[in-house]
């Protein structure tokens, strides 16, 4: 019984095995290996040109490595075709972008429903619940241009969550937000992590990286180090409460 619990806790959601990525003579990534366990929160850091974006593209199944293997939820996705990768993205990954990327002519709830539409069946109530979870139920019928940056990013998080992905992949999620909106979004991630979501965040912000359990540092396309971050006392336990309190204050 104990062994079974231990196995579940150490189940690997993502395994990166010696991947390299070359663009002609340029080596964007060289021999990178690491593992993300289920329910783990990993931050990938590094200066500009270190290969962070290339790494997130490969983890997000939007690109393939030149060599090496990417095992996502037990399936090697490194040699799949573009159409097969689309299916993997649809079924297993929730994406959050720095620039939000909401469809400008759809309301907040419709933007969430787009992810449902391409995944399986559209359920407006479920989409509204996802927006409620990120504190945006009242803004569900607003167009992106009628929402603040923080609100748009929260819609983006709701869209990433709607299909219950195996992995939430966030690319500089607070990069375009002011401090208070950044805090709201990070509180949401804390809440998701507390609920058991597996999260990979690419960031150059040490404060954002510090929220994760581990930080993977890339330099010049190589894995420089992996550090375990000290647990932020009380934060994980209180994450849900913190996010809700901040949202209530905003409301």
């Amino acid at each position, binding site marked *: 019984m104990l062994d079974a619990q231990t196995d579940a806790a150490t189940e690997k959601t993502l395994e990166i095995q010696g991947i390299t990525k070359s663009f002609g003579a340029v080596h964007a990534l060289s021999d990178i290996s690491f593992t993300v366990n289920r329910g783990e929160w990993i931050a990938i850091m590094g200066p500009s040109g270190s290969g962070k974006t290339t790494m997130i593209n490969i983890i997000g199944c939007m690109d393939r490595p030149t060599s090496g293997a990417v095992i996502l939820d037990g399936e090697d996705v490194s040699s799949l075709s573009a159409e097969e990768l689309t299916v993997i993205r649809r079924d297993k990954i929730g994406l959050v972008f720095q620039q939000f990327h909401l469809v400008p002519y759809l309301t907040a709830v419709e933007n969430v429903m787009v992810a449902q539409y391409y*995944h399986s069946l559209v359920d407006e109530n479920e989409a509204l619940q996802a927006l409620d979870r990120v504190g945006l139920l009242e803004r569900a019928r607003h167009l992106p241009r009628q929402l603040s940056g923080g609100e748009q990013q929260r819609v983006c998080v709701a869209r990433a969550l709607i299909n219950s992905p195996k992995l939430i992949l966030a690319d500089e999620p607070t990069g375009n937000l002011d401090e208070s909106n950044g805090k709201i979004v990070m509180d949401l991630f804390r809440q998701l992590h507390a609920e058991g979501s597996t999260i990979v965040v690419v960031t150059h912000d040490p404060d954002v990286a510090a929220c994760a359990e581990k930080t993977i540092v890339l330099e010049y396309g190589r894995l420089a180090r992996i550090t375990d971050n000290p647990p932020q006392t009380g934060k994980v336990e209180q994450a849900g409460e913190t996010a809700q309190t901040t949202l209530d204050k905003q409301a």
Partner: protein
Amino acid sequence: MFWKMIFGALTRQRGKPLMIAFAVGLGVSLATAMLNVMFDVGDKVNQELKTYGANLIVAPRGLAAFNDLYDLTEDEGRTEQSARPEQFLNEADILKIKMIFWAHNIVDFAPYLDTRVLAGGEAITMTGAWFDRHLDLPSGETVDTGMNRMKSWWEVQGSFARDESLREVMVGTELAKRMRLAVGDSFTLAAPDGRDLGQVRVCGIFHSGGEEDGRVFAPLALAQEIAGQPGKVQRVEVSALTTPENELARRAAQNPNSLSAMEWETWYCTCYISSVAYQIEEALPEARVKTVLQVAQSEGAILQKTQLLMLLLTLLSLICSALAISNLVTANVMERSAEVGLLKAVGAHTGAVILLIMTEILLSAFVGAVGGYCMGLGFAQLIGRTVFGSFVTAKALVIPIVAVLVLLVTLIGSLPAMRMLFLLRPTEVLHGK
């Protein structure tokens, strides 16, 4: 969700679908106008060409054979008192021309009878004709026809003579100059044997630009009285709306019996000048019908060239439209590349994205096409009124043609954008770095 996305894209994007609709509408309006004019231009050009005279001459078989045998012109074959009966047609039979299968395509006709008279001591040709005759056909229809319609290009000082007056004549400019006649003057006519025929009044002096300028034109009844041939005419000029000749028509003109039954039926039921001539000969067995080939061939050539011009303009407008759509759609897709990348990133297959964007474009194009069609009908009327002085009939056939053309033009115009959509990778547009 698909239609929600389409509805959102069409109603909440600022002006982009409208621009596509406008480009399509412009192309469709020109295509609709040109196609409608092209289909109607045959009748219009034919009507215009009818003003340049008759394209069929109906003559008695006997006179035609006599003239052909001795290689005489019509003037040389003019009526003499001693002329044989087979050299004339009965005036009463002329109505049959308006009762053939293609009666509605017989626009005008006028009978003529030439005779010789003496005026001021000079022997001149007097031609009797219908000027403006009202006819009641046995079918119950009424027809107004005569020289004033057939010779609309004549420059007439004064007026055409009246059919019912036996003392009014029209004099050609050359003759009027020689005899120093003006409108309103009277002069004495005499028979070739010197018998006094009384005085006639000049109601009009005409300039035709041809040999008619040396003649006197009088009401048919007067010429018949002078010639001593009551109820007789020598020839009939017929102006008919016809279809341009083709190989079948040319073969039929040479020998209708050489055609197969099906070919003969096609030829007979098509308004070729040769089939109209054939039908007139059927109605008037004693007559032989000659086609005025220069006029018939010019009509065909002008019609074909005009239709070709219209077709080229239609193609040109559609090519311009396709280029405009191509630019607009490509710009639209480029502008929305992040959105397209996002859809692909959240799991949309390339085909699904293309279907979404194409539906959006085709719906915009449909709205533009409907507007463009209505605008095109307006343009067609404008062209009709300006060029031909009459309205252009809207042809139902244009609607499916335009629909197919819009679909093709929109799809072809969207090809570069579709290629972009196909090749676009989410990684290229989502990071924004």
